[in-house]
């Protein structure tokens, strides 16, 4: 089987999530990559070094500058003439793009796979990860998104794939990028952080969140996450949200501060290696999944912890 893996990038570097998708795709067969964007020479060079990759297809055109799905999907559909599976890490870019590709190919996408059981059989979470389904597709061509935390990352170095330019399928003229507010964050990205400190509704406001959660995270070199309640209330931006409908994380250590542990939140973090919970309610559901629990008032406990580390 020949697979085409979507390269997630920011215009200059290949995002880590891509490496998990490469591992998943390599279980299906030969791995080719697709880099789409504008001025992505550097990205293509970096992608060609990923271990185990045969070929990198590069579509460099203004129409692909912001990975507009309306423009990229026809490109992918065309390349799928020569490939059997389109595989992408389940980032928001891929979640936007892949179903459109699947529709153009008339196939049912398999979302967010956890494992490859055979060339047509996969496992995937349903119901916020409260159930794991084994599914088999009858579609000849496959469109698959991959849960990044479920696959080892392929080595970013060591490969020497050939690079091949593909011509643009053009601008469909129905979608235009206006602007973006992308957080410039010095902290580790949530999906690749080794340690994450997350804050919940209990923080009460943005000032408390910054004053308590961030210093603790800085001490530990951790990424910072949040519950939906903390995001909805405006303590932190949307990209902090961990959960069923936010980011899926699986760090070595996840520290939940003032988070109750609703199933939608657990869906995003319960595969963390060690879970630590700080909550004043000893019956909070988060303690049912926590390896280490501390019952206490976060306004007292967190500053003390930061101080003593």
């Amino acid at each position, binding site marked *: 089987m020949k697979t085409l893996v979507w390269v997630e990038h920011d215009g200059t570097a290949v995002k880590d999530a891509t490496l998990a998708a490469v591992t998943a795709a390599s279980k299906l067969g030969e791995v080719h990559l697709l880099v789409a964007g504008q001025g992505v020479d550097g990205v293509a060079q970096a992608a060609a070094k990923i271990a185990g990759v045969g070929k990198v297809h590069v579509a460099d055109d203004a129409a692909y500058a*912001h990975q507009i*799905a*309306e423009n990229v999907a026809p490109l992918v559909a065309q390349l799928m003439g020569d490939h059997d599976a389109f595989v992408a890490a389940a980032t*928001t870019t891929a*979640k*936007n793009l892949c*179903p*459109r*590709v*699947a*529709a153009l190919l008339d196939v*049912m*996408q*398999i*979302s967010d796979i956890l494992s490859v059981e055979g060339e047509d059989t996969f496992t995937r*979470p*349903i119901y*916020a990860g*409260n*159930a*794991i*389904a*084994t*599914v*088999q*597709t*009858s*579609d000849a061509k496959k469109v698959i998104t991959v849960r990044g935390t479920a696959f080892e990352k392929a080595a970013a170095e060591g490969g020497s794939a050939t690079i091949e330019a593909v011509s643009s399928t053009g601008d469909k003229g*129905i*979608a*235009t*990028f206006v*602007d*973006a*507010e992308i957080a410039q964050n010095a902290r580790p990205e949530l999906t690749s952080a080794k340690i994450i400190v997350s804050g919940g509704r209990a923080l009460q406001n943005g000032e408390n969140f910054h004053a308590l959660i961030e210093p603790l995270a800085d001490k*530990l070199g951790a990424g910072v996450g949040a519950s*939906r309640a903390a995001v*909805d209330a405006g303590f932190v*931006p*949307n*990209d902090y949200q961990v959960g*069923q*409908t936010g*980011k899926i994380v699986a760090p070595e*250590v996840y520290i939940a501060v003032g988070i109750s542990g609703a*199933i*939608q939140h657990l869906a995003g973090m*319960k595969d963390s290696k060690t*879970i*630590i919970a700080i909550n004043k309610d*000893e019956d909070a559901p988060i*303690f*049912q*999944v926590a390896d*280490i*629990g*501390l019952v206490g008032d976060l306004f007292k406990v967190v500053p*003390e912890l930061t101080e*003593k*580390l």
Partner: protein
Amino acid sequence: MKVLVPVKRVLDYNVKPRVKADGTGVDLANVKMSMNPFDEIAVEEAIRLKEGKNGGGVTEIVVVSIGEQKAQETIRTALAMGADRGILVTSDEKVEPLGVAKILAKIVEEEQPSLVILGKQAIDDDNNQTGQMLAGLLGWGQGTFASKVELAADSVTVTREVDGGLETDRFTLPAIVTTDLRLNEPRYASLPNIMKAKSKPLATKTAADYGVDVTPRIKTLKVVEPAKRSAGVKVADVDELVMKLQAMGIAK
């Protein structure tokens, strides 16, 4: 301007899903079912547009649900919130997102809406596909994961929740929008409106009426519970927690 809003009946988000002992799926017998929360946000957005948001160019809201007969309850809920009429497409077999998108594409052909607003994902299958597939089939733009929607006469500008933050894109109408959590807070239907909704028009169809083949492409071989985590230890105070962190090598 007409807006089409597809809605799905799913296990209520407050109910903990239980995997059936025979491993065929999640037990839906005798449990509370509700409108998918993202779809409530979609209905709410359509109603606000009709009530005057962005100049109030929206004049009619049509709600569609595809599923078992009971999905008409979900449509009634949307009608009680403020939608105008409903279309129920019944199917005894589960219809996959691709099949749903194909039926919706036919309904779009008939109804000619300027905007279709869907939830970004259903909280049962967590697929996050239908809106994008519909957009692909129709060749329309797709403003996915919307936290802000601004409708103009010939375009819709959508602020989208993406991994790195927010991205704003503009789409030519007609277009697809899918909702994220922060777009709005859906209203509750009042009792008088629930009563009134009972007399709003609701048409019932089948997939065959639209000539769409909804044979599933994906077979579920089995469904199991995930590996369980068990509760660990409670520490008495911060000093003990620090000791634990030191033992794990993440604190000095």
